[in-house]
């Protein structure tokens, strides 16, 4: 229970100084000295300790808890990954990199990795462009600005599980609304669940639907801090609205764009609920031929279907590496892209 820590330190501090409830572990020692020294000197010392140690006391619950529930499990995943470790039997023999070899040689691994990257690309690139455009529309003197902003945020309140179910039915191969709509305009139906690329497109649509408005608001916040006189100057130079947007707005908010790209990379590569709920078969592991299975689904599959926590950990660690590589790649790319546009502007 999280509150244990607080209660304990709080009691200790109270015992030390009735006036202050600062949870300082050092106060316990001070309370022992309290009887001997003169009262005012003791007070002064206490106050100095208070100033000196309070900051650490305030930040330590976060750091301690984060290390326990966030950092330690992630690091310990590497340890589990080099053991034969069963969900039921627990820790077995040390097997070195055998789990990694097994995972990489598994035919579903490469498939899931490619699916994950494909879904990620189909969702991130259009999403950034749409978010930018949407933020540009919102970055005007709208009447009832808050209502419009709430409106674009609406999909964000729908949980990924619900999104997966709803779009699974919208993209239904036989009775889905999308295929019916395609039929009304004379187009053939698409096998949204069985065709690999089509299924990736459907899942990417879910991600785009849920996150475009959210990211647009982040970009909008950055756009609003762009000095308005820049636009005046550009207008005098004869730049139209679109030109102002591409030459002033977008370059000015580049750090925020990079931030959005990197956070959506980290989230997007761990996608799980949407493809799982999109699957209408009983196994729910990404289609009959795993055509839309993702890396996180593979972690779940290894760990909680095959009950092999060693391989699940190896998969998690491989996904972690993939995330780092792609996030760094994004960062480098965006820097290069930035210098290119700058050079062009100077010319």
């Amino acid at each position, binding site marked *: 229970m999280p509150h244990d820590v607080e209660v304990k330190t709080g009691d200790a501090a109270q015992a030390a100084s009735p006036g202050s409830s600062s949870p300082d572990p050092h106060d316990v020692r001070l309370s022992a000295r309290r009887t001997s020294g003169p009262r005012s000197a003791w007070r002064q010392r206490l106050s100095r300790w208070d100033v000196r140690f309070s900051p650490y006391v305030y930040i330590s619950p976060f750091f301690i808890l984060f290390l326990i529930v966030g950092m330690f499990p992630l690091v310990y995943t590497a340890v589990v990954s080099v053991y034969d470790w069963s969900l039921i039997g627990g820790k077995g023999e040390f097997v070195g990199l055998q789990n990694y070899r097994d995972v990489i040689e598994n035919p579903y691994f490469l498939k899931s990795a490619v699916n994950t990257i494909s879904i990620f690309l189909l969702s991130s690139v259009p999403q950034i462009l749409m978010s930018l455009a949407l933020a540009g529309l919102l970055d005007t003197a709208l009447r009832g600005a808050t209502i419009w902003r709430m409106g674009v945020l*609406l999909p964000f309140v729908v949980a990924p*599980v*619900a999104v997966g179910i709803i779009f699974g*039915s919208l993209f239904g191969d036989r009775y889905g609304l999308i295929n*019916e709509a395609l039929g009304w305009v004379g187009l053939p139906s698409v096998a949204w669940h069985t065709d690999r690329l089509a299924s990736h497109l459907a899942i990417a649509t879910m991600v785009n639907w849920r996150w475009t408005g959210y990211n647009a608001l982040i970009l909008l916040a950055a756009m609003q801090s762009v000095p308005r006189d820049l636009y005046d100057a550009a207008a005098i130079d004869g730049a139209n609205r679109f030109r102002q947007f591409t030459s002033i707005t977008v370059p000015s908010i580049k750090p925020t764009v990079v931030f959005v790209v990197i956070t959506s990379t980290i989230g997007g590569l761990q996608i*799980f609920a949407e493809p799982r709920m999109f699957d209408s078969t009983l196994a729910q592991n990404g289609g009959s031929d795993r055509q839309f299975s993702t890396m996180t689904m593979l*972690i779940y599959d290894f760990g909680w279907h095959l009950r092999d926590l060693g391989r699940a950990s190896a998969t*998690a660690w491989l996904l972690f590496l993939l995330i780092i590589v792609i996030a760094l790649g994004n960062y480098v790319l965006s820097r290069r892209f930035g210098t290119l546009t700058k050079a062009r502007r100077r010319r």
Partner: protein
Amino acid sequence: MTRRPGFLVYGLLAAFIVGSALPLYWSFLIGSHTKEVITRDVPPLLPGGHFLSNAQRVFDSVPFWKALGNSLMVSSVAATSVVIFGTLAGYAFAKLRFRGSTALLVFVVVTMAVPTQLGVVPLFIVMAELGWTGSVWAAIVPSIVTAFGVFFMRQYLVDAVPDELIEAARVDGCSMFRTFLTVAVPVARPAMAILWLFTFMMVWTDFFWPLIVLPADNPTVQVALNQLQSGYFKDYALVLAGTSLATIPLLVLFVVTGKQFVAGIMQGAVKG
């Protein structure tokens, strides 16, 4: 320069929002008809009268009330804990001087990007060791603190609390913690509310971890929806009625507090 938008801007925004609402409407539409309606070539335009009977079937097939209670419990406990620890640490980073503060704050920012979800295996092993698997406490554990919470509160408090106010309280003889409680917390209240709402929502919609630690008879809302979806026989009227039911609480929360949501997302971003 005033940038008064024309009809085109309003029209595009309206179209976007209608497009955003359409899938939700579809969910309620199918969920309020009988299950045969989905096989029609042209779906009905208006909701039917079967929502309540479909909802009854949802309650008969999965422990939905229990799921609602569990989700409420998990999300509010996690949100409260994130707010308490985030405010404490955020205040220290924003207003107190101490050795190592810059390096530690950088650490917080970097950890915001760490995919902690990938640590599920050891977390599960520890929960199993403690005998917590299956209980809602296990579902709460990974969400009790977030680096985002600390950073968000820090960003807010840096500008919101004047240093003079802290000085004055100190001169008046307030202890450090008293100063925090009487000066910082009242000022921080709006940001605390936003962080609470935000965390509540993130935890409410979380799926991967609850799916791993919670059994079918003690689920959260998301895990219960998963059970509805994974039946042998696909009855979309039932499944989408359940999905609508699961979305309504958050939708209500959003309608009431949407302004705070918008403010929170925009505040968290500006200096990020």
